[in-house]
Each structure stands twice: as C-alpha cells, then as structure tokens.
C-alpha cells in the first residue's frame, strides 16, 4: 500500500508571452470580436489577390511549350495542393496543442480547418484530373501527386467522419485531434512511399508542376494565387470558428449579449 505517494498536480499560470497570447485567444468573447473585425479584411485581400492572380495567369502568362494552354490549370491546382498539405500540417500542430493543454479554442480551430482542407484537396484532385485529359489523354492516371492527394482526402474524410460520429462535442474533438496527429505522423511516409511506388511502376511522365526551371511570367501568378489561397483559408477558418463558438456557448451570457446587440 502506498500511503506516502502524493499525487498533486496543479497548473500555475505562466507569464510566457506565447501562453498569454494563446490564453487571450482562448477567451471566447475576445476571439469573437477580434476575428469579427479581421474577417472582412481577409476576404477583401483574398478577392483582390485572386483577381490579380487570375489576370496574370489566364491573360498575361504565356502558354507552356510542352503542355500548351492547359498549363494555366497549374495556377489553381498547385496552390490548392499546397494548401491541402499545409492545412493538414497546421491541423496536426493545433491538435497537439489541443490535446496536451486541453485548449478548447484549438479544438475549434482544428475542426474548422478540416472541411476547408478537404475542399482544397477536392479542387486539387479535380483540377489535376482535368489537366490530365488533354495532357495524358485520360482523366485519371495513378500519378504520384494525384495518388497522395487522394490518400490525403481520405485522411481528411476520416477526421471529419470521426468528429461527426461522436455525439459529445469535446470528446469528438479530442478523438479527431488524435486521429489527425496520427495521420500527420503517417503523412510523410505515405507521401514518399507513393512517390517511390510511382517511379517503380511507371516511367516519369510530364508533371503538372513543370520542370525545375519556371519562367517568372508563370511564377508570379502562381505565387499570388498561393497567397490568395492562404487568405481564403484565414477568412473561412475564422468564420467557421466563430460560428462553432456561438453554437457551443449558446447558453453562456456573452453569446446572448452578442445576439441581442445585433438584433436591436
């Protein structure tokens, strides 16, 4: 019998600025107001960058000597594929924080990211497939990029599916966080094994990302579209997080105040 053993764990408030920031971010009314002010600016930046990027990509940039006009799909496909990977990576970071420190705001951000990441993955798959028809002569080739995007889509659907299947919101979020984390550990392995499998089974074909050197007239629209996609993610993420917050805190005073203010 262990009478001497003492279990006593307390978390003392730390003065670390990062913890303080996360703490502040974790205060629902503060987050709600802050994000409410930020969202219109994010949407506006996204719209401006998209228009600029599309103008450069669809009008100014030349056709590729090898792929022809269809290279213009790249300005959509590549940013979407980048976003799909980046969002999953961010979800893994958020999941880690949410699981270790039990921060509800991080759970909300992580679960709000999942549908956006899935949307970008679907765009990457659809645009890659539509690029394949004129280039390879078929809508689907088990190309390394498309295959790992497909597996990534399954990972996203798994996280979303698990979250929706569990009733209790906090439990659902924690389960989804753990799954996202496990998926993130596996993702690099999946990515490289698929890439390697692809070279094993077929010779390298023309890739949508082009060769090693890319002309600046094509690089600029690509980068602008990539930045625009990040603003879309930011705006959409905050919008979704705010709504989730309202839903979860329905019975709390601050939500009632917010709704009352906006009705009157």
């Amino acid at each position: 019998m262990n009478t001497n053993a003492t279990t006593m764990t307390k978390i003392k408030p730390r003065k670390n600025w990062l913890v303080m920031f996360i703490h502040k971010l974790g205060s629902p009314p503060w987050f709600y107001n802050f994000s409410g002010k930020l969202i219109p600016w994010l949407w506006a930046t996204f719209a401006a960058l998209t228009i600029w990027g599309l103008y450069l990509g669809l009008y100014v940039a030349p056709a590729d000597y090898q792929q022809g006009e269809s290279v213009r799909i790249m300005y959509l496909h590549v940013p979407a594929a980048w976003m799909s990977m980046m969002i999953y990576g961010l979800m893994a970071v958020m999941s880690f924080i949410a699981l270790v420190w039990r921060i509800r705001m991080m759970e909300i951000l992580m679960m709000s990211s999942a549908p956006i990441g899935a949307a970008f993955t679907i765009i990457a798959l659809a645009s890659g497939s539509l690029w394949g028809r004129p280039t390879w002569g078929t809508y689907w080739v088990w190309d390394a990029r498309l295959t790992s995007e497909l597996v990534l889509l399954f990972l996203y659907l798994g996280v979303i599916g698990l979250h929706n299947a569990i009733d209790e919101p906090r439990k659902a979020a924690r389960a989804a966080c753990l799954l996202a984390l496990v998926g993130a550990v596996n993702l690099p392995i999946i990515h490289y094994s698929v890439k390697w499998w692809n070279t094993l089974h077929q010779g390298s074909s023309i890739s949508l990302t082009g060769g090693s050197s890319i002309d600046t007239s094509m690089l600029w629209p690509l980068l602008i579209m990539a930045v625009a996609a990040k603003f879309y993610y930011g705006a959409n993420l905050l919008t979704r997080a705010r709504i989730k917050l309202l839903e979860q805190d329905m019975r709390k005073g601050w939500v009632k105040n917010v709704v009352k203010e906006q009705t009157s």
Partner: protein
Amino acid sequence: MLSVSKINFERYFAPVFQPVSFTLEAGGLLLVTGANGCGKTTLIRVLAGILHPTSGEFSSRTGSMAYVGHHLGIKDDLSVVENLRFMRDFLGTSNRSSEEVMKEVGLTRVSEQLARTLSAGQRKRCALARLLLSNTQLWLLDEPYSNLDQEGVELVDKMLLKHLEAGGACVLATHGAHRPNWQQTENYELISGVAA
C-alpha cells in the same frame, strides 16, 4: 486521503453537477446522495480518473483506487474463479487467495460456473470479491447495493466496515434508502448542475 476542491464536469457544454468540494480522511466514509441524473456516477468516474474534470483540482494521497461501477468488469466467458485469478495476477497487490475471497462473498458453490450463467446479484458479489483482492485504501462504490438480496446488502456493509476500521476510506454513491452504519460518515448531497 482525498481532497477535492471545486471540481466540475461539463457535458455538452453544460455542467453535470454543481462544483464539488470535500475532504476525506482515513477511516472516513462519504455518502454521495441525490436524485437520479444528478451526476453521482459522473462524479465517481471523475474521482476514479476515468473522466477528466472540466475545472477544479483534486489530490489523492493513495496510489490506486478500487472501483465498482455499473459495468462490473466481469468476463462472461470465464468462470468465477478464472475471473478472480486473472484480476489477482493482473493487480499483483493482494496477499489473499482467490478461493479465500470467493468464500467471503459466498460464491464458492458457483466458482467453476461461467460468469454468464450467474444472476445479477451473484455477478455483483463477484465484483465485490475483486474489491477484496485490490488491496487499496480508497474504494469508489457506485450503487453497491443494487441487485443484492438482504444477505448481500449485509455483506457489503460488513466488508465496508472492515475496510474502514482498517484505516481505509470510501466514497459511496447511492440513491436507495439503505445506509451503512459508521460513525465517521459524511453525507454529500449532489445537486444537478442544470439549474443556474
């Protein structure tokens, strides 16, 4: 032995019970009472470490705890004696034999039967026998009297008093009228957290 300060547990973003604070000394018995749905089982599960409290602190000075809940943790495909032997080997803290505790709870006659053939009361007795094998100071009992006959109820009381006299402590949740007779008893009425 166990000190709890303002612990709270939320489900669907609503508190299950109003914040709970108490201290339990060696030899102390805490009776948790209250209406159905007031969160007795949830509180016990929080104390057991199965659920994580939403807020509040608690510290316990004992290492492990023993717990008898609604799901008894008995394998249907094992006989009574196999169940107890496994738990004894698994916990590895007891100096009593499984035959001895089986005799104490009155299951010797059915010891070779598969657990699935037992009645609800006999299953409860099997779970109580596991309690005797656990050799821990803190017992968490959730409705220990349910499904038991008069003799069984007396058995629980006898076991409990012996445990308390030996310096153990116990948190006991019950909604029934029966109360164990012990001088160091504290009554904690749990209030549902819905009313704000």
